[in-house]
Every structure is written in structure tokens, then in C-alpha cells.
């Protein structure tokens, strides 16, 4: 008889909890918006955080709630925005596609090294050590902090000791921009690669720049005077070209004494191209 009590008691307790659980699951069910999943499927899924949210799922939730702009996904750019618009039946402004660009061309043949650095392979560490091994305090140390942080393998250090952005693979997420301790990388609008750039970040005075690097901006202002569009300004001893004003006339290129200005089309689109034709070797052609 005992055993029947046991079986019944245990069975009843089990049944009771089972019913309780299924009721709880029914009553307290959390409705997950099915659109969140759809949005998530459309996103690139790299969890790069360029949109300002922790990851793609959080961004998807925010988009569905209407808090985030569906065009905010920078790696996905226009395509993702359009796909999102389909899912959500929304009109969206396209996110502008960006591409990372390294603002230093002082490679190991052009920039002077002060000493041989044999420490930790980290730009921030090397930069703190006696101000970095390069004579130029602004130049790229080429130890690859940007390479390590890139989720798309779109940036590599070439044999010349500088990072090269694979413009096809780069999504413009901007992680390398944040990772570079010397702020040498900027994301620029792709817009069919238009415009010229001063590929230097040195704010040193002309004399010390030319001692440290043969291709650094020496702040001579020749380009400022040469530009018919008045697109070039001096910002703390560094010439900066306003891409919105630049019309690719190329007037600034021949007047630059250290040859620091290049049309964006001359920047190698990936490592292979760079090895075929190094940036500074061929005279930069202007696309007038």
C-alpha cells in the first residue's frame, strides 16, 4: 500500500508543478517582436558596434522600437538600410558608405627611425617608449593595432611598414580609427573615391618635419595658394583639404615640395596593388 501512496504523492507533486510551470509560461510569456529577428537577419552580424549599440541584436531591437535610425548601420551602408526599409516598411535615409584611410605615408624608406624598437608589438606601447621609434612624433609606427581590431580583415601592414586598407573589404565601421593611438586613420565617404588628400598628420614645424620624414607636410602653404577652389586650409601647421570643395583639379599636387598630396584614386586599393605599384613611385596622375 505504501508504494502506491508514494507513487501517487510524487506523481501529484510532479503534475502540480508541471501545470504550474506551463501556466506560468502561458501567463508570463514574453512576446518577442518577430520583426527583431527579421531585422537581425538583414544586418551584417559583425557586432562591430559602429552604430553605437552593443551589438547587432541590440541595434535590431532599437530599430524595431523606433529609437535607432535604420540607416545607422555603417558597415551595411545603403544595402542594409534598404533591406531594413523592406522589413519595416519605412523610408530611410541611406547611411553614407565610409572607407578608412591612413593619413601617413612615411614608410620605412621615407621616415627616419631614431632607434630600433624591440618591445611589445603594440603601437600605443611603442609610442609611449621615448616618444616612439620614429623621428616623427605623429607618424605611423606600423605595429598593427588597427590590424588586430579590424573584424573584417580589411587592413594589413605592408612590407613598407605601413597599414594598407583593403578598400573592397573595408566597411568603414571605424574601429581602427579608435584603435590608432596616433589618430592617423579617418573614415572618409566613399563617393567614388573623389578628391585629393594630404597624406600626413604631422603638426610639427616644417624644419623638424623635413628632418624626420621626406614626405611630411612642411606647412609651406604652397597648396593653399595653388588651390583655385580654396579647398585647402592650414590647421595647426598641417594642410587639410576639404573634400566637399575639392574638385580634383590636381593643382596642389605638383606644387607640394615633399610630394605629400595625392588623389584618392592613387591610394592602393589593397596590399597586392601596393606591391605592384608603390604609392610614391609613380607620379600621381591627376584626373582632370
Amino acid at each position, binding site marked *: 500500500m505504501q508504494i502506491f501512496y508514494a507513487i501517487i504523492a*510524487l506523481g501529484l*507533486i510532479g503534475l502540480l508543478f508541471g501545470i504550474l510551470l506551463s501556466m506560468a509560461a502561458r501567463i508570463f510569456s514574453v512576446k518577442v517582436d518577430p520583426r527583431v529577428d527579421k531585422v537581425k537577419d538583414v544586418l551584417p552580424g559583425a557586432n562591430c558596434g559602429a552604430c553605437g549599440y552593443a551589438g547587432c541584436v541590440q541595434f535590431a531591437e532599437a530599430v524595431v522600437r523606433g529609437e535607432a535610425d535604420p540607416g545607422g548601420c555603417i558597415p551595411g551602408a545603403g544595402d542594409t538600410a534598404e533591406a531594413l526599409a523592406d522589413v519595416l516598411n519605412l523610408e530611410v535615409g541611406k547611411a553614407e558608405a565610409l572607407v578608412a584611410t591612413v593619413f601617413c605615408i612615411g614608410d620605412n624608406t621615407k621616415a627616419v627611425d631614431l632607434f630600433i624598437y624591440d618591445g611589445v608589438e603594440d603601437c600605443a606601447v611603442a609610442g609611449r617608449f621615448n616618444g616612439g621609434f620614429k623621428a616623427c612624433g605623429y607618424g605611423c609606427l606600423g605595429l598593427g593595432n588597427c590590424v588586430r581590431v579590424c573584424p573584417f580583415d580589411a587592413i594589413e601592414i605592408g612590407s613598407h611598414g605601413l597599414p594598407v586598407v583593403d578598400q573592397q573589404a573595408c566597411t568603414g565601421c571605424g574601429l581602427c580609427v579608435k584603435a590608432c593611438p596616433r589618430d592617423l586613420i579617418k573614415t572618409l565617404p566613399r563617393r567614388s573615391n573623389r578628391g585629393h588628400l594630404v597624406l600626413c598628420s604631422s603638426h610639427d614645424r616644417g624644419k623638424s618635419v623635413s628632418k624626420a620624414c621626406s614626405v611630411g607636410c612642411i606647412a609651406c602653404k604652397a597648396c593653399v595658394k595653388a588651390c583655385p577652389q580654396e579647398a585647402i586650409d592650414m590647421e595647426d601647421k598641417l594642410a587639410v583639404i576639404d573634400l566637399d570643395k575639392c574638385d580634383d583639379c590636381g593643382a596642389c599636387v605638383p606644387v607640394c615640395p615633399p610630394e605629400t598630396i595625392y588623389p584618392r584614386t592613387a591610394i592602393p586599393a589593397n596590399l597586392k596593388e601596393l606591391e605592384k605599384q608603390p604609392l610614391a613611385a609613380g607620379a600621381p596622375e591627376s584626373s582632370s
Partner: protein
Amino acid sequence: MERLLSIIFIYILVENFVLQRFFGICPFLGVSRKMETAIGMSMAVVFVMTMATIVTWLLFTFVLEPFNLQYLQIVTFILVIASLVQLVETTLRKISPTLYQGLGIFLPLITTNCAIMAVALLAVREEFVFVEAVVFGVAASLGFSLALVIMAGIRERLELAEIPDVLQGSAVTLITAGILSLAFMGFRGMLSL
């Protein structure tokens, strides 16, 4: 009242569940690496342990004992604890998503925490009345939390200390736990029920 106070004191310090009774060593070592997770786990344990003690005590007194089925207590308690954790999880997810996210993975982990089972079994064996059993559950979980928080504090500091190669990792953690346990033995015999 005096008895309740001494239950609290005994099960937080004298008979500390982790450091004296050696229950729940797994989460004690597993989630004590960071203070943040340690506190999350502690909160979850306080919550579940109290609930579990209440439910198991009621079940034992009003179902198992009258039918002379005391020998079923372990099976029953496993059932209770597992469903309770599940119940708490679904409820919490709806009622307080913030707390749910805070407790995170610790809730399901507690299902297999032997300290919970021990509380349920001990509350019955010590023949506590209902109020005593509840206080016992709270005190035991607070003792668990205390041990976990102390351990997390020490381990956070150990991260910065220079530890000989042979002792690194779990070795130094286990030694720390042992010394901590020895320290708590100082409370032995201070008070008993």
C-alpha cells in the same frame, strides 16, 4: 526571537555553508573571479534559497509527513527546486526584465547548486518550525553570499599580486579558500542551538 537571532548568527558565521559545511563549492570557485558576478550570483541564491526553503518545508510537513513518505524527500526536493528555478526564471523575465538580465545565467546555474538542496534537507532534519525554517534559509543564503563576496574581493586583488608560477590559477584559489575556511573556524563553538 532569541532563537531566530542565533539561527541567523550561526548560519552566517559559525556554520557558514560554504566555508564550514563545504556546500556549493562549485559556484563559490566558479563565479568569484569578479565582484560583479559574485554579487549577481549572491542575489540569485538569496532569492532561490529562501523560496526553496519555504516550499520544501511546506511540502514536507503537509504532504510527506502525514503520509509517512519522508524517504521521498530527496526526490521531491529535487523536483521542487528544479521547477522553482524554472518558475522564478519565467516570472522574472516578464515582471522584472532588468533583474532577469542582472541575474542572467546564474538562475539556471542554481538548479544544480547543492547548497540549496542542503538548506531544504537541513531545515527538515533540524525540525525547525516554519518561521525558523524561513529565517534559516535567508541566513544560509546570506552566509553563502558573504563567503562569495569575500572570495571575490580577495581574488580581484590576487590578480595584481605576484604569484609563483606553480601556484597560479586554481592552485592559489583553492589555497585561498582553505585559509578563508580556517579563518571561519575561529567562530566554532561560539554559539549553538
